[in-house]
């Protein structure tokens, strides 16, 4: 069931309507837990972050000006709470020397002194049909493992964009970064996760 529009929600929340609060609590907490978890070391800490976030939301409702969507505002508070508890960085800019350079191993392309320079040496192998139920659980496990291995800033962006499905503008608002920076991080994260799946499928081919 979709939530009421923001202006109605805000009025009801400010009026102390706890049904409205329960609605947003239940609708948004899972996504916030996932977001928090991409910053912090464990599930318990993620739960604490989300609780602290909701308490900050309750305290700050009077200050919400409606310049962004309510959910974006709540998520931004969650990001800030998570950053405080997280181990690593608080800035979301691409890191020079880490977040630049090719995302596909240059050895996979013909070099400049070869014919067809810059083209694939051998074509990427097609993947089997993802609908096969037998693979679904294993694939999810591989994806989760891949996400865990990403640098935090890449993990947060790909979680918000691809796992949670937010658009570029919203994610930029939540993380307070530029679209260009956000895309750099998303690009690297997707390339890495794709490569992990490629390795997984290649392994299955060999065994078959």
């Amino acid at each position, binding site marked *: 069931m979709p939530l009421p529009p923001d202006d109605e929600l805000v009025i009801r929340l400010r009026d*102390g309507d706890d049904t409205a609060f329960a609605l947003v609590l239940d609708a948004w907490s899972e996504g916030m837990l996932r977001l928090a978890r991409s910053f912090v070391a464990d599930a318990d800490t993620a739960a604490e972050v989300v609780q602290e976030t909701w308490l900050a939301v*309750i305290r700050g409702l009077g200050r919400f000006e409606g310049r962004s969507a309510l959910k974006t505002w709540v998520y931004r508070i969650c990001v800030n709470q998570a950053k405080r508890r997280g181990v690593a960085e608080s800035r979301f800019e691409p890191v020079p020397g880490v977040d630049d350079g090719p995302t596909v191993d240059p050895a996979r*392309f013909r070099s400049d002194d070869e014919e067809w320079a810059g*083209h694939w040496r051998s074509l*990427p192998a097609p993947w089997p049909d993802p609908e096969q139920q037998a693979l679904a659980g294993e694939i999810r496990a591989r994806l*989760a493992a891949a996400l865990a291995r990403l640098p935090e800033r890449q993990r947060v962006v790909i979680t918000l964009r691809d796992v949670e499905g937010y658009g570029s503008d919203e994610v930029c608002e939540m993380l307070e970064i530029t679209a260009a920076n956000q895309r750099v991080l998303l690009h690297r994260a*997707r390339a890495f996760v794709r490569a992990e799946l490629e390795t997984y499928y290649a392994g299955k081919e060999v065994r078959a």
Partner: protein
Amino acid sequence: MTEMNCNEFVELVTDFLDGALDEDDQTRFVDHLSLCDGCSTYLDQIRETSDALADLPAVQTLPDEAREHLLAAFRKT
């Protein structure tokens, strides 16, 4: 306008999917895509990866105790 190579193509997939390529790069990208099976496969796989991530189930929910605590905090205000 120079033709795009595969090693350039793979670095532009995210921009392409976000509609963020400028006109010239967009043309070069789409032209290359239509000619190159390898890059077509690569782009499909990036999309598939993104789609698969969307299917990851939620692994964590708010514990009931926490939920009650928050509702109580809300009611106190």
